[in-house]
């Protein structure tokens, strides 16, 4: 009864309790303060947002911009054409996520392992991460997309640009994600490891059942964040000649000299990424709440 907001609901065990005069007065004061806050927020939102919209709409160039970027009729017309190709973005992202998950997990486990037999792989993993975390994705795309076919290796030279492009994205993102997972693994308190080892679990069992589940859970928010970036970066495979959503929009624009296709494809990305970022925010809030609740344990 003493903490948190008292909304006037009757908690169990308070039978026969009626709020005192000064408590009732405080509640009246609180609700009038709340009403005032809502009013201020509403007025301020209307003024600021309305002002911005007014500035754009009354600008001298707005009719032209509206015609070239927000042409409703043309937008509706090109939407199915763009969506057909936007599906390629979604598909490549989905395939990439699976490979990234596996490869980055292996990299992170190698980098945190202490087994002597794994020493060379540990070094290779570190080199790999350093390398591909530091090279811009666009360059990796060029190097893989044009370099690999040039090798003329049997079975490799005939690969589709879609596959090469996705491979480049997988290679780069695996390095990013491996570091995120590794930081999760390292964030698990040593006492957890000690507890597991004291029960006779081997280092591998300790990792599998105690450290990894906790470490991964902690890095879910940054991992979701990386998936949003991944989805957007998949569009970069268009530099290798893949006609996906963004490239399709560009083709349409080149034909019509109207930029509306870009807006359409941007909206398509938003429809997928906004729910993802909302999930990220919520899972971040949850994990913070959980960590605060845990205390010593």
């Amino acid at each position, binding site marked *: 009864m003493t903490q948190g907001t008292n909304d006037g609901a009757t908690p169990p065990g308070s039978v026969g309790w009626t709020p005192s005069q000064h408590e009732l007065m405080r509640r009246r004061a609180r609700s009038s303060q709340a009403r005032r806050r809502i009013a201020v927020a509403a007025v301020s939102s209307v003024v600021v947002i309305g002002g911005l919209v007014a500035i754009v709409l009354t600008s001298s160039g707005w009719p032209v911009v509206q015609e070239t970027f927000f042409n409703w009729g043309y937008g509706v017309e090109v939407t199915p054409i763009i969506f057909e190709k936007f599906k390629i973005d979604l598909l490549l992202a989905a395939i990439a996520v699976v490979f990234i998950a596996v490869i980055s997990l292996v990299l992170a486990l190698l980098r945190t392992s202490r087994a002597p037999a794994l020493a060379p792989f540990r070094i290779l993993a570190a080199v790999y991460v350093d390398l591909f975390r530091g090279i811009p994705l666009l360059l990796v795309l060029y190097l893989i997309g044009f370099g690999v076919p040039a090798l003329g290796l049997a079975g490799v030279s005939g690969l589709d640009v879609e596959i090469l492009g996705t491979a480049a994205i997988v290679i780069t993102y695996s390095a990013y994600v491996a570091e995120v997972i590794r930081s999760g693994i390292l964030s698990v308190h040593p*006492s957890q490891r000690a507890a597991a080892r004291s029960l006779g679990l081997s280092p591998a069992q300790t990792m599998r059942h105690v450290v990894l589940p906790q470490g991964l859970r902690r890095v879910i928010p940054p991992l979701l964040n990386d998936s949003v970036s991944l989805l957007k970066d998949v569009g970069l495979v268009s530099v290798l000649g893949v006609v996906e959503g963004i490239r399709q929009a560009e083709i349409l624009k080149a034909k019509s000299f109207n930029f509306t296709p870009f807006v359409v494809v941007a909206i398509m990305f938003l429809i997928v990424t906004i729910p993802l970022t909302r999930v990220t925010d919520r899972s971040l809030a949850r994990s913070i709440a959980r960590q605060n609740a*845990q205390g010593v344990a």
Partner: protein
Amino acid sequence: MSASSDAVQPLLELRHVRKSFGNELVLQDVSLVVPEHTVTVLIGASGSGKSTLLRCINQLEQIDDGLVLFDGVDIADPRIDADETRQRIGIVFQAFNLFPHMTVLDNITLAMRRVHGVRRADAEATALELLSRFSLADKAGEHPDRLSGGQQQRVAIVRALAVAPRLMLFDEITSALDPVLVNEVLAVVRDLRGDGMTMVIATHEMGFATQVADEVCFLAGGVVVERGTPDRVIHDPQDPLTREFLRRVHEAGRL
């Protein structure tokens, strides 16, 4: 100490154990004899090496010198599989160290299933039996953060007991608890003593030490300064260091 300790090989024996962390010498020369079915209580100021000693016994820390004989075998020998050793020595920590992502039941059955290859159903039956013995059966499905400190610590004890260790180590298991919860946890240890469990206990609870200990060892400066029955060491200390320590404990109202 039990009368037969000279005749039979003790379950655990430490000889001249030495351990330092960097430049800090924590254990200088500690010897200890723990016959089977006896309770040894370690007392001493914070930082006197009680926890380190326990961690050295189950090989969570590597000793610098000396012998840790378990059943007559030096388990500090790197050629002895430490995982295998730890399966026979349970430890309970001050901070509980339960696995927060698992239910109480999974915390307890993890080692049984993964290390000892017990089938899930059998492991859960064993776990539930132990839980109900310590009045925790209704908590089996909960996660540790939903439990009180006393309940968490009792679950940690059950988790260590579940794999039927021959020796149990308790590292200041009540230091993070309020007085009421302290009692509920200590009752479990008394219970285990009744079962004849061999235990080494580091604690600041002198009253409890008097009740359960066969032998009390007072640690200071990395050595066992004084040892003997609880009546002898706690109620009639001979060494000035022991007297000073107990006087301060008394002043703090903990005797």
